[in-house]
Structures are given as structure tokens and as C-alpha cells.
């Protein structure tokens, strides 16, 4: 009894609680890392590879953090990939074509992404149009706008200062990783500690109850989509800096990687449930698997297939947790059958 109590108390500590609620994805992550460490001890465990894996993960992480909020309020944002392209293109264009100062160009690029999110959010909240449709339209609008601006050509940028944003290092750690750590901390704080975070869970968990509890639903919804747009735009700027250019096709499929990270991390597609820590682990699993496949020289099309299968398995496990799941019933009937045979 006392053992059980101390166990229950332990679970209430934030760190332990975080580990427990993510036990599934955490074990997957550990198994993959262990397997990789054994299979590829030299290349995987080298500090340069670890840093490069983290850096590769970072871009998806920025977007997935915003997506987590969106999915918790039982929404979806399909436009984030196009927003990555739009903000990168505008920022690079303003610097190279129009000669804007770098800081101003970056702010404009990022605010533009936030504006895309704000518009989607406003239409979704105010007019109750399904998020899937609104953000799909925004996906086309943003990519279209980027291509109109750039004439669908890639634009090179050679500015050293701009390069530092994506390529710079602090104490030997690439800057994108540092942004990632900061953003994870900020978003965890927002979701777990602020009123805004509590409201987000309430809206996804039970909209009517949230409304009657005085939650300003529309404002929160609009803010969530704005944040998602802002983070995607930030990812766009960092990516443009890393590629020394703005590309018309950049960001295609990014929305799916972000959604995959959330789903892998246990964020419920029906809303109300999910944690930043889960999304972080989800993004890491996806990133590490890609890294493994890269180390094995698997071509990118096979990588897509592997990613798809992993997502399916993750969702399957997640939905089979409940007691009346098909999987459990199947196992139960197998058990009974075996029991009968033994008895006979």
C-alpha cells in the first residue's frame, strides 16, 4: 500500500510525470538510439553526428511546436509548409532585391507568417469554417504569393550576417539547436503554466464547457493559429539562411512531418490531449530514423515508406490503449482459446 502511494506521489512530480505520460514514445526513442549505437557506434555516437541530427530535427521542431497547440484545440494547420516558403522568399527577396536591412527583412518575413496564421485563425474562429479547408486554402495562397514574388525562381543570398542565423555557432553548438531549446522551454511554459495554456486544453477537451467557464474561445483560437504561423515563418528564415537561398519548392510536406511528430508524441487528433514533451520526443524519433536511414544510404523514397509505416504503428498503438480496443479483444480471445485447449 505504502509502496503504491509513494509511486503515485512520484508520478505527480513534473519530471517523472512527463516521463510516465510519454512512456511509449520514450521507450521507442531509447530502443532506436540503443540499436543505432550498437549498429553504427562510430558514426552515430560521434559528437558531430549528434549535433547534426539535432540540427536537422530543429527545423521540424519549430513547426511541430506550433502544430501541437493547433491540434490540442482540435484544429489542423496545413499551411505551415507554404508559410516556410513564403517567409524565406520574402525575407531573402527584401534583402537582395530591395536592399532592406537584414533585421527589418526578417521581421517582415516572420510577421507575414504570423499574419497568414492570424487570417486562417480569424476565419476559423469567426465564421466556423473547418480548419482543414481554411488552412488548405492558405497553403495555396501562401505558396502562390511566394512564387509570384520570386517569379518561381530560386534566389541566392551571400550576405555573411544573414548566413550566421542558420550557420552560426555558440560555444560550438549550432544556433538552430539553441533556438530549438529556447522555443521548447517557452512553449512548455506557455502550455503548462499560463492561463492561455489551460484555455487551450479546455477548448480541445470540451468546447461548450469552456465557453460556459468564461474561456474567450475565439481569441485563443486566433492566437493559436497566429503562433503556428509565426513559428513556421521563423523556420522559413532559418532554413533560407542555411541554404544560402530561397527556393520555390521549399517546405513541401513540412506540415505532414510536423503533424507526424505530434501524433507520434501522443497529441490526440481529436483534441484536448497532448504535451510539448511528447511532440519533442516524436520529432526526435522521426529525425533519428531519417538519420539512420541516411547513414545506411537508403534512398529517400524508401525513407518515405518507412516513415509512413512508423506513423501508422504509432497511431495504432495510441488508439489501442483503451480497454475495449480491437487489439485487446483479439489478445483476450486468443488467451481464452489457449486456456480452453489447456483445460481439455
Amino acid at each position, binding site marked *: 500500500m505504502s509502496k503504491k502511494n509513494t509511486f503515485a506521489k512520484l508520478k505527480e512530480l513534473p519530471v517523472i510525470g512527463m516521463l510516465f505520460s510519454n512512456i511509449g514514445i520514450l521507450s521507442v526513442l531509447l530502443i532506436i538510439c540503443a540499436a543505432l549505437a550498437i549498429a553504427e557506434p562510430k558514426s552515430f555516437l560521434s559528437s558531430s553526428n549528434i549535433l547534426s541530427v539535432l540540427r536537422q530535427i530543429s527545423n521540424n521542431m519549430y513547426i511541430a511546436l506550433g502544430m501541437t497547440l493547433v491540434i490540442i484545440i482540435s484544429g489542423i494547420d496545413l499551411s505551415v509548409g507554404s508559410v516556410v516558403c513564403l517567409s524565406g522568399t520574402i525575407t531573402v527577396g527584401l534583402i537582395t532585391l530591395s536592399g532592406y536591412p537584414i533585421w527589418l527583412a526578417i521581421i517582415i518575413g516572420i510577421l507575414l507568417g504570423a499574419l497568414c496564421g492570424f487570417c486562417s485563425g480569424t476565419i476559423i474562429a469567426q465564421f466556423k469554417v473547418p480548419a482543414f479547408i481554411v488552412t488548405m486554402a492558405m497553403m495555396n495562397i501562401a505558396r502562390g504569393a511566394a512564387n509570384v514574388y520570386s517569379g518561381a525562381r530560386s534566389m541566392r543570398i551571400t550576405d555573411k550576417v544573414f548566413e550566421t542565423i542558420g550557420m552560426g555557432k555558440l560555444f560550438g553548438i549550432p544556433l538552430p539547436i539553441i533556438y530549438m531549446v529556447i522555443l521548447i522551454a517557452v512553449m512548455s511554459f506557455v502550455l503548462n503554466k499560463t492561463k492561455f495554456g489551460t484555455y487551450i*486544453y479546455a477548448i480541445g477537451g470540451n468546447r461548450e464547457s469552456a465557453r460556459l*467557464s468564461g474561456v474567450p474561445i475565439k481569441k485563443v483560437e486566433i492566437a493559436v493559429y497566429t503562433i503556428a504561423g509565426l513559428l513556421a515563418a521563423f523556420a522559413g528564415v532559418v532554413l533560407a539562411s542555411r541554404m544560402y537561398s530561397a527556393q520555390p519548392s521549399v517546405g513541401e510536406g513540412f506540415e505532414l512531418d510536423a503533424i507526424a511528430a505530434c501524433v507520434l508524441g501522443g497529441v490526440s487528433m481529436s483534441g484536448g490531449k497532448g504535451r510539448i514533451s511528447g511532440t519533442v520526443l516524436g520529432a526526435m524519433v522521426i529525425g533519428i530514423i531519417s538519420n539512420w536511414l541516411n547513414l545506411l544510404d537508403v534512398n529517400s523514397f524508401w525513407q518515405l515508406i518507412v516513415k509512413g509505416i512508423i506513423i501508422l504503428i504509432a497511431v495504432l498503438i495510441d488508439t489501442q490503449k483503451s480497454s475495449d480496443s480491437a487489439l485487446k479483444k483479439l489478445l483476450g480471445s486468443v488467451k481464452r482459446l489457449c486456456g480452453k485447449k489447456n483445460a481439455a
Partner: protein
Amino acid sequence: MSHTVLRMEGIDKSFSGTHALKNINFELKLGEVHALLGENGAGKSTLIKVLGGIHQPDSGSIFINDEKVNIRGINEARKYGIGIIHQEIVLVPFLTVAQNIFLGHEPVRAGVVDSKTINADAQEMVARLGLDIDVTTPLERLTIAQQQMVEIVKASSFNVKILVMDEPTSSLSDEEVEKLFETIEKLKKQNVSIIYISHRMEELFRISDRITVIRDGTYVGTKNTSETNASELVSMMVGRTLKSFYVRTYNEISETVLSVRNLSRKGEFEDVSFDVHKGEILGFSGLVGAGRSEIMQSVFGALPSDRGEIVLNGNTVKFKNPKQAIKAGISLVPEDRKNEGLVLMNSVSYNIKLASLHFVMNGIAESRKKISALVSDYMQRLRIKAASPEIEVSSLSGGNQQKVVLAKWLAARPDVLILDEPTRGVDVGAKQEIYSIINDLAANGMAIIMVSSDLPEIINMCDSVCVVRSGRIVAKLPREELTQERIMNYATGGNEQ
């Protein structure tokens, strides 16, 4: 009446540690209405799920017509003539009545669904139960009561011999309850045996032949309805004798806290005026759909009004949304606990803090300390039974869930507390506790409005009662003049004829 159609013997069932059913016996005779009575969490629904093939018992046997059977799924249950009508309607709103009735076993002619036959057969089934429903209308256009009737028709389409009804009257008006009882009588005559689950004592005495009581997963006893009484049943259910069910000490009524004048909303309610004072419990009675809940929602800012004036603590107020009402000191405990009151998938603590975040902030962050102080304070005060404040609120019994909703709205420290059906779907023990909480609140000077369809509750708890009919307050009755007949007369318009 003597032939036994169903016997459940020694049914035992455990779920990961909880012993839900302990050696339960149950017996059902041909053409009888057998009520199953017990507090929430006593094991009624688990027993029903065992019968319906949703759960397999760990031990024990089920006999149908004295033949031992193994029910392994819903389809097998149907094969044995077992039909279950759940508390919530589980039909498809966009399909027609006929399509709903035949959903999953449509007659097919040459690979195509034969809608002519469906409609004709469905209409005949509806007529057989003496109902007046056009089977070609989409289900969503029917009232809740009619939809429930469709559920019954659907169950009877499987040639049902044993029909389980789980709280069938929880969302019906008195008139609709009468219709339901007529239908039950018809089913009895067709030799259908009925297991009837309800908390409403008066109903059991009207409709049932026998009553079986279970408590904490164990069988307590079976009584012939004609040979028992409410207080005996209650003491069987709770395992002790409840002295006085209603708790009310009347207070000196002092200053007016809330006064509403000529509040109107087109098509919902008109010229509604009332005052609530410190320490007063003002009741709102009337038929379901009379507009009581809408009036309260409007006072609370959740439903806009066309005209009228609301004065709170001497200031004229106009709330655009519930947030403003909460800030000004009004709390509304909504009627529908699951859909409006709680975020079921979240913890007890989360739900309690949700309407009073402004009290637990520490700068821009919520303070863990303040939240846990607030939550444990209210959990103690309302005696909420939960293993921990962090467990999901959906795992609590109905009574405890309702106390969580109450705690949430008391934590917002209101001057005016509006309770919409505060004891709906709550078992007897918890009901009494809730009455005593409400009484204490009034004694401490809170102004309370109580909307309820439970007449004894209204009569025994309120200082005075407004009776609402078709969106208007048709009578204001002081405590001394409250009788069930009087209220019903005003509610139905019976006194005018």
C-alpha cells in the same frame, strides 16, 4: 407471468483490480418490468454490459429460457432476443426513422436496399407500439422523446424478448414519460420482459412489478413493488437509513442581490422579471422546454437577450459573454454535466480551477501552490471522493462529478449561484449531500437560483418558486403554497381550463 425468461447466477466480474460485480443473481419473468436499482457505481451498467455481451463474466452463468448460454458479443445478444436502450441516443441524426430502424440489417432486393419494404415495415412497427411518427422524416427533426421511441422500435425489430432501458426518462418531460409508460405497457402485453434502470423512485412504483437492489457490486435483495416503499429501498441502496432526505434551514431574507426585469428573447422567453435575495433559494419549475435553462443562460451572458435589464448588487449590467458574468459574481452550474459542465478527459484539479484562474495566478504563470490549495479546500468542503486531484474526472461516479462541477463554480466565489438541475443523474446518497451543501451556501448568505424538474426537490428546498410556461413566468408561489399539484397546474396551464 410465471415463466422465467432470464436467470443470471453468481455473476462475478473484475476490471484490473476493481471488483465490479460480486456473485450477483438476477431473474426476469415473462412480461414483467423488473427495475434495477442502485447508486451510481453500484454495478448496474456492468451487469447490463455482461448481459449484452459487451463484457464477459469471470464466473457465473446466464440462462435464457432455462438454457445455459454464452453471450460473446452484441450480435449474439440480439440472437437471444436481448435489446439494450442506452441512456444516450445512439442513432444517426441524418438518416430517416426507417433507415435507422433497419440500419445494419437492411432488406436487399437485387443488391439494392429495398426502401419501399423498409418504410412499410417500419411504419407498421411504429404503429404496433401505438406511436404517431412518420418513418420517412429524418431523425434529427424528432424530439428527444420521439428519438427514444425510435430506439425502442429498433430494438423490437430484432424480435426482442428482453429489453433493457437505462435511465430512459432522464431527458423527458412528464408528458413524454407518460407516453413512454404507455409504450412499456404495450410491450408487456406482447410478452416482452423489461429491465428498467432509473433513479426516480416515483417511476419505479408506477411501472415496475419487482425491484432488485444492488450495492457496491453485490446483490442486496429483490422486492415485489407492491410490498415495499421508498424509504425501505433507499436504505437498501445506501446500506443505512437516511433520516431526513432534504436539508433546509430557512434564513432571514435580506437585501436583493440580483434583479431581472422584462428580460426577453424572441422565440425563447418574454418579460421575465424576478429578484433573488441574500440567503434565498429561488426555484424555477416548469416543463422541459419551457425556457427555464434559456433564461438562466441569458442572465449568465451565454445567450444574448433582445431586451430587459439585469441589476446585480445595485449596478445595471449587460454581459456579452460568460466571462464577464463570472467576473461580476455569477456562477452557473449547467444542466448537462458531461457536455457543458466538465472537461471529462482532464483531471479533477483542472476542472475545479478552470473558472477561477484569476485567483491562482502568480504573475503570468499559474501557481501550483495556489491551485493545490484551492483544489484541496473545495474537495474537502464538498467531500469529493477521488483517489487524487490528478485523476481523470471521467473516472468518478456521477455524484462526485456533479460535486466537481459545483466546486468549480463555487471556487469562482459567486454572489449569485445558478443551479440548473443540480441533482440530475445523481444517486440518492450524493443527492442528500448536495442538498446539504446548497443549504449551507444559502445559510452563509449566497443568493441561489435552482432550476429543477424534480418537484419534491423544488418544494422542499426553495423559499419561493417561479413557474415557467412557454417562456413566461406564470406564477410566483411562496413556500407555504407549494404543492406538486399547484405547480403542475401552472406549468401545464391546467388551472386555466
